[in-house]
């Protein structure tokens, strides 16, 4: 893949890639990420000291609590001292103000960020394995059905996994990490985002039972409704077994011996209320569905994702305020991903085509105008006040298409509404903040390189900086039950720190040092979030060529040919299945993630997302109203 690097590859791009975790780059070139005490072979020479001092820094002890000109001393993984009168110990390595920092700018120290949900450290499962041949699709083996609640994230941890480095570079030092794939992929662990061994990274081994509304493709449970039925089945049967087991312990005579199995046993702590069932769900619908299961079955709930939670603040307020704050709180973690505007977004120039297309007397018999409370921005750029960067022209509530030839105006109107709707996502965090809800952040769906730009956008749309920092640190620690160990820059806490060269949420501020467990990582002066906008394609990933694809349908596997042409950023192609050729729409490559849509005839528009690794791809075909089915592909020719 390295050989396919564009020849125009230049240093700035390289830096961005590094911030994003350009994992494919060979390690010797990573001059910008190195430990101060790095030696040619660190294993041979013991480190001289485990102590570091950051002197004359601005220390954000906790959101809203700042010390100027203070010193932070880190020793052997803990914060040893914080304060203005603290002297750096003789044996502490000084954390230098890296080159490029102005003389009068001091370093700023924050508590390390905590991600409420992530797959950090959990490698993608190998794609080479053949899908098991399931004789009865209605009763597949548990691992095929996605029922693996007995798996532990710790057991799957790989300290070399790429996301760890990416998240660290964005200031994250700890995360609740969960296994991948299926409705019950396994148990989450809270980990430090660096370490030599899996067990050395673990803060809490079994923190949750992770759940998501993800069907098993061509076998049961294929749909969300079957996933929900399966949650009921498992928890109710687990309860039966538990009750039976307790009776058996007391008086085994005449009782059938309770059957033990790992899956039901793994759910016992959830039944007992000791561990949350931790749902990932992006949509408002999933949020309601998880909440309903929680209310029906009584298990402790936590949720992450929640990109549409602005539509469910009432429900969230209800479940967060039920019971006492200590035990019955429902932890919420908001996705740090934000929707990306599709390519067909209109330019900012207001159109004129629609001005006279409002149906007269549309609203309550009067000509629609902006003074009507329920008329939406007619003829006036009301969006400007909402957003500093309002996309496009205003939405006209009562727009009427006058002729079949005049669909452009209608299209613009729909684009305008879409733009307004995107803003609700940007303002989602602010909406929750204003509703008095407590939340942390989830990095599960977010590209690490986009996180800081997205945070700035959330702040631009009303989230206070203090609450943003709290969601990254103190609130996240509290919601994960780790407040005594993490979340603030205080003596005795674990030395997870983020050191920046300016105010955290300023665009030109860069993260210079990150400490995990007292271990320093140093970064260049590239701004923390990298440049705004889409992630560039991961190095070397070029999806062009001809691919043989396999789509798992219930009656067997369907094969087809996918042809992709053009360069990343300008891709097009076709797909042929069963002799029918369809043109691909909206072909996009973000990182190594490919997405496109095509017309599936009677089933509607099918959207495909796939991750490309070398000459293989693995992904999902989403069928409207049904859900996802697995797709695999192998490149048989190209790219040139």
């Amino acid at each position, binding site marked *: 893949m390295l050989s396919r690097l564009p020849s125009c590859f230049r240093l700035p791009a390289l830096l961005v890639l590094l911030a994003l975790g350009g994992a494919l780059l060979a390690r010797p070139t990573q001059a910008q990420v190195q430990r101060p005490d790095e030696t040619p072979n660190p294993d041979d020479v013991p480190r001289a000291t485990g102590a570091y001092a950051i002197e004359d820094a601005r220390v954000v002890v906790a959101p809203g609590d700042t010390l100027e000109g203070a010193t932070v001393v880190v020793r052997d993984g803990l914060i040893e001292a914080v304060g203005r009168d603290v002297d750096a110990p003789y044996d502490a390595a000084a954390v230098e103000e890296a080159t490029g920092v102005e003389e009068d700018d001091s370093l700023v120290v924050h508590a390390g960020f905590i991600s409420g949900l992530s797959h950090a450290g959990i490698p993608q499962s190998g794609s080479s394995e053949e899908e098991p041949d399931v004789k009865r699709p209605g009763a597949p083996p548990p691992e095929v059905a996605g029922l693996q609640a007995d798996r532990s994230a710790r057991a799957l941890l790989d300290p070399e996994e790429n996301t760890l480095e990416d998240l660290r570079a964005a200031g994250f030092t700890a995360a609740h990490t969960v296994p991948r794939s299926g409705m019950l992929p396994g148990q989450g662990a809270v980990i430090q985002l660096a370490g030599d061994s899996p067990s050395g990274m673990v803060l809490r081994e079994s923190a949750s039972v992770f759940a998501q509304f993800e069907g098993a493709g*061509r076998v049961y449970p294929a749909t969300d409704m*079957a996933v929900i*039925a399966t949650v009921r089945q498992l928890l109710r049967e687990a309860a039966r077994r538990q009750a039976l087991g307790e009776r058996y312990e007391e008086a085994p005579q005449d009782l059938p011996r309770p059957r033990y199995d790992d899956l039901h046993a793994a759910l016992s702590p959830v039944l007992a209320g000791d561990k949350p069932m931790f749902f990932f769900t992006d949509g408002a*619908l999933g949020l309601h569905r998880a909440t309903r299961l929680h209310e029906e079955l009584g298990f402790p709930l936590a949720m992450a994702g929640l990109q549409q939670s602005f539509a469910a603040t009432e429900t969230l307020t209800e479940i967060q305020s039920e019971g006492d704050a200590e035990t019955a709180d429902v932890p919420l973690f908001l996705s740090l991903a934000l929707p990306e505007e599709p390519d067909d977004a209109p330019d900012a120039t207001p159109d004129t085509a629609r001005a006279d297309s409002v149906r007269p007397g549309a609203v309550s018999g009067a000509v629609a105008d902006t003074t009507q409370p329920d008329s939406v921005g007619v003829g006036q750029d009301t969006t400007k006040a909402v957003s500093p960067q309002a996309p496009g022209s205003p939405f006209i509530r009562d727009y009427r298409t006058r002729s079949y030839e005049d669909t452009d105006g209608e299209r613009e109107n729909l684009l305008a509404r879409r733009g307004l709707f995107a803003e609700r996502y940007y303002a989602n965090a602010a909406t929750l903040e204003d509703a008095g809800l407590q939340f942390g952040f989830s990095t599960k769906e977010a590209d690490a390189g986009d996180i800081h730009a997205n945070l700035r956008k959330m702040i631009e749309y009303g989230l206070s900086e203090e609450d943003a920092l709290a969601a990254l640190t103190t609130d996240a620690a509290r919601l994960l039950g780790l407040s005594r160990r993490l979340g603030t820059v205080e003596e005795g806490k674990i030395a997870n720190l983020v050191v920046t060269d300016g105010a955290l949420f300023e665009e030109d501020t860069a993260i210079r040092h990150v400490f995990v467990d007292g271990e320093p990582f140093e970064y260049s002066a590239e701004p923390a979030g990298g440049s705004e906008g889409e992630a560039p394609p991961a190095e070397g990933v070029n999806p062009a060529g001809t691919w043989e694809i396999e789509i798992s349908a219930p009656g067997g596997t369907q094969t087809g040919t996918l042809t992709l042409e053009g360069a990343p950023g300008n891709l097009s192609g076709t797909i042929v299945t069963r002799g029918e050729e369809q043109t691909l729409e909206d072909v996009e490559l973000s990182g190594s993630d490919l997405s496109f849509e095509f017309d599936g005839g009677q089933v*509607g528009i099918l959207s495909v997302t796939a991750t490309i690794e070398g000459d293989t791809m693995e992904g999902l075909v989403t069928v409207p109203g049904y859900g996802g089915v697995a797709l695999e592909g192998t490149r048989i020719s190209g790219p040139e």
Partner: protein
Amino acid sequence: MRFLTSLALLLLVLAPAERVAAQEDGPSQGIVDLYEAREERDDWLIQDATVLTVTNGTIEDGDVLVQDGNIAAVGEDVDAPGDVEVYDASGEYVMPGVVDAHVHIGISNVNEATNPVTAEVDVGDVLDPFDVALYRALAGGVTTSHVMHGSANPIGGQNETIKHRYGVTDPGELRFEGAPGTIKFALGENPTRVHGTGQDIQPSTRMGVEHVIRRALNRAERYAAQKEAFQNGERAAPPEYSERLEALADVLSGDLQVHCHSYRADEIVMLMDVLDDFGVDDVTFQHVNEGFKVAPELAEYGAGASVFADWWAYKFEVYYSTAFNAAILARNGVLTSINSDSGELDRHLYHEAAKTQKYGDLSKNQALKLITINPAKQLGIADRVGSIEEGKDADLAIFSKHPLNIYTVPQRTYVDGVKRFDHADDPSDVRLFVDPEAPVPATRAGHTAGHAGTEEHRCMHGAFRMGAFARKALQQ
């Protein structure tokens, strides 16, 4: 500025219209969603209309008083509180909201097609209040729908009766509170094709379909007996818990009413025999294209029939059909309704009902019953909806002309007294949710998310997934 922005956004999400209006010069209009700012008034006086009560004749120049979402009074010159909002419906017709006994809108999934018996799954768990089809149905006077699991499995999942409260965002608020539970069964070509042809498992034949159903109900009987034995102390431990058998036991006890997809006379009689053997009385046959051949038998069993007006020949088992089906069934004493099974047809069920006047000479009132009180009876909700009577829910549809007139235009639709559709105020884009990442097509003629075509709402949706490339007319 930051404060203002955040305040405005909060208002947009939470505030009723008045508060938004009070936000002077604010950016309030920007992203108010169409229904969040809408009033939820449920007190009305609908005045001087022709009131088609369906159960108590027609009142010329009648009034309907709606209070707290219920029908408080019906008659000529009804007394009303002075401050009630009046709608002058002179020259217009008021009928009870249409009840659609079979449709697949407002749900995220239709078929769990992986197993021949999936009694444990429930479309009520995956209600989707954002489906714009709910609004489109309102625009055709529909206020209640029986949203069903698909017909891929001999015993499919549980259905949900919903009200078209389009504008709510909590899926639970769509539910028709207190409506009896129902479950989908399916006979004939669909289940044999999905499981027999598609996956090479039983059932491959109509015999196999019968066996799958009998075996499932047998197991449920044993399961219920084991549970009872445990409760009586005759058994040391309860049987292994099964959501599936719990649901099937509810079928046996009558707590879940059977709604069975069927076409042919022989299979209809077969299922009545099976249910009779298990002591199950409550059954409504869906589609029932050959119902006219066994109308006396259906009537004797007390089975309901929910049919199409004139839709057939989309596959082999539906060639032997007639547009007289509804009339023949009704005249033989079968409780009969006409359903849509479609997110398009449900907008004009009043046309479908009218066809029974052409094909079968049903009276106007008999025809209206097919889409109001009769389906309400089949769904066990006739005490609440299906006619205009004092004390019932104020689910009302107002038409410009008689609803069976081909030139009629729906004017307003009320659900629980709340105006959910108004022909005079019908915004250009009624979606509650817009995907900020979805491209906007050049025209809306194509089917895209949020502007779902009718294909999405049909019976076999999800049954074949990618196999759908090859299928031709799989619907129904």
